[in-house]
């Protein structure tokens, strides 16, 4: 398994390099330039000439790429042209929100989708099956931005002043300030370095931070703000997972060993939970892995609808503002993240099915 993992990581390096190459040249092909995009009317030729020289953008693009690779090898992702702050700092501010949102969305998709798929398979061709598949088909067909707006309308307006009211925008209610959990523990955190990056990243996941710091009210407030975005983002994945689970369960339930188990007198519940369910998991896990990638695409739209400053929205704004370092830095992190996630999914096959040899 270790050899397999190393091979997979090594084979992903050319892909990540290719992603970086394409991104580097693609963003520089966007019409306009960062100086005009950021300074607007103040962008005179003299100011822009100085601007490009300061940022190293006056050099030929291949030279810029070489310099960027050299800095990257030293862990330097560069500085945002717009915010004049290190990319790593912006990343650890924005990425935690998207990670938290993505995890909640996938959790929602799995918790609802898998049981729906199993029930649908067990009650094949019944009214339950038909209703479940209708819901799944509708879920797969809904635009995520439309669903987000409709959820906001229902839960923020129609259910206003009821216990089911949920906030339609933002991460926390006005006046709620999360205290980093490490301050609650009294830890001393340096101003830079790996420890700072990791702890700040975790503390910017407000739900996790609230739980770790025993600040239940802030954690709950953060959860309330994330429910609608997570449902909007996770619905398509939920529908896909429900359909795949149903299909996989039906295939497994038709196998000879299931018939044997029933013939031996095993209770139906045990047949399903002990024998059928685990064998149906493999294709479902593959689909869940694929959904993680789609979630990031959907995050752009969800973050826009709900006013969340996550990775998706930041990248979209960076493209508009021609802020090359943000685009490059974020894309690298996302590409590496995809590789790691796909590896985890592949490794899980060996755990779920011992017959699978990860050669």
């Amino acid at each position, binding site marked *: 398994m270790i050899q397999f993992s190393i091979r997979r990581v090594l084979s992903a390096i*050319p*892909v*990540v390099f*290719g*992603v970086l190459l*394409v*991104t580097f040249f*693609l*963003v520089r*092909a*966007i*019409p306009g330039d960062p100086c005009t995009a950021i300074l607007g009317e103040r962008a005179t030729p003299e100011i822009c000439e100085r601007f490009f020289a300061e940022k190293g953008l006056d050099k030929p693009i291949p030279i810029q790429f070489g310099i960027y690779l050299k800095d990257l090898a030293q862990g330097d992702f560069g500085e945002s042209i717009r915010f004049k702050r290190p990319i790593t700092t912006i990343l650890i501010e924005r990425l935690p929100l998207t990670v938290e949102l993505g995890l909640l969305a996938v959790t929602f998709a799995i918790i609802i989708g898998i049981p729906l798929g199993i029930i649908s398979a067990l009650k094949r061709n019944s009214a339950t099956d038909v209703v479940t*598949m209708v819901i799944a*088909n*509708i879920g*797969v*067909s*809904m*635009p*995520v*931005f*439309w*669903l987000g*707006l*409709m959820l*906001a*309308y229902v839960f*923020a*307006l129609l259910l206003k002043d009821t216990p089911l009211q949920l906030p339609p925008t933002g991460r926390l209610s006005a006046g709620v300030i999360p205290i980093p959990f490490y301050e609650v523990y009294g830890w001393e955190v340096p101003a830079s370095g790996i420890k700072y990056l990791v702890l700040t990243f975790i503390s910017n996941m407000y739900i996790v931070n609230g739980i770790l710091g025993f600040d239940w009210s802030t954690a709950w407030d953060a959860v309330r703000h994330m429910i609608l975005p997570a449902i909007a983002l996770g619905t398509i994945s939920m529908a896909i997972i429900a359909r795949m689970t149903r299909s996989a369960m039906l295939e497994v339930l038709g196998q000879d060993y299931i018939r044997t188990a029933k013939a031996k007198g095993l209770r139906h519940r045990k047949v399903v939970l002990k024998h059928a369910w685990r064998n149906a998991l493999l294709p479902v896990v593959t689909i869940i892995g694929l959904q993680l*990638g*789609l979630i*990031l*695409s*959907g995050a*752009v*739209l969800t973050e*826009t*609808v709900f006013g969340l400053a996550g990775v*998706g929205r930041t*990248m*979209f704004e960076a*493209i*508009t503002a021609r802020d090359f370092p943000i*685009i490059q830095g974020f*894309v690298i992190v*996302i*590409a590496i993240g*995809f*590789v790691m996630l796909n590896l985890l999914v592949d490794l899980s096959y060996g755990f779920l099915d011992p017959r699978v040899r990860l050669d």
Partner: protein
Amino acid sequence: MSSVTELPVDTIDDPLEGTIGNFKSNSLWRLTLRRFFRQKSAIIGGVILIILVFGAVFADFVAPYSPTEDFIGEPNTSRRDPPCIHLLGCPEEKPQHIMGLDGNARDVFSRIIYGARISLTVGFVVVGFAIITGTVLGSVAGYSGGWLGNIIMRILDVVLAFPFLILAIAIVSVLGPGLTNAMLAIAIVSIPAYARVVRSSVLYVREQSYVEASRALGASHRQILMGRILPNSLPPLIVIGTLGIATAILDTAALSFIGLGAQPPQPEWGSMLASERNQVFSAPHLVFFPGLAIMLTVLAFNLLGDGLRDALDPRLAQAGFDPE
């Protein structure tokens, strides 16, 4: 029972006909169609699609107004008026607009009908472009293999490593916002999916005995590819193409929603949603109806695609399965 030797020569079948990968044109397609029409969900998808196509083609007759005609200054009308249906109690003196008026006092129902033209065009053009390009790349990668196949697949892997929408946004930013560029961007990011399907199909089919037989008979690479391999790659392409139309419509609407796709005053559904999204609390009908139109269109293609996939299931075809 007659012996085989008594059979006249002209009744002996072509040895390559009727084999698993070689659809005997009449009977297997008829079987496929029969299986397709047995699925209620596929029929529902087909009916929705027929209504949509009818509305799109005959929009000039179906839509009560032009998509750009506004009612500013008309008596008893104002911007963002809610739906008014006289049959459901809306006062007669108020002009009937069954889905209300938008922020520019244009009839929403008419804009949605005309928007169907845009969405259907988007779906077919995007998928058509992506399938043709993907088929060429996938065929070359699968048939020739070697270093060329590897390079093609690595380039496609790089494209696939990007989050779909982010790459589409970047491409549109390079080309400039607009519906045509949005369609091109979505088509480009969709190519790898089709190329992979065609490549898998080609890899499987090229090892079949009938392809080997064709090679032995002296057929050229082009003849084998066009005559044997690609036709047998059609079934999965038809399925993912149909499902791909749904995705193309959704993604183009998404690009329009963030301002990079269709530009006003085009009645594209995503762009209609985008321009009124801040009114969701005061005029929810302006968000509800365009989104519902997108959902129903995408649902129709998804149901159709699912139906085609089940009808074209190769395991059923190989087993000669006849539901009757």
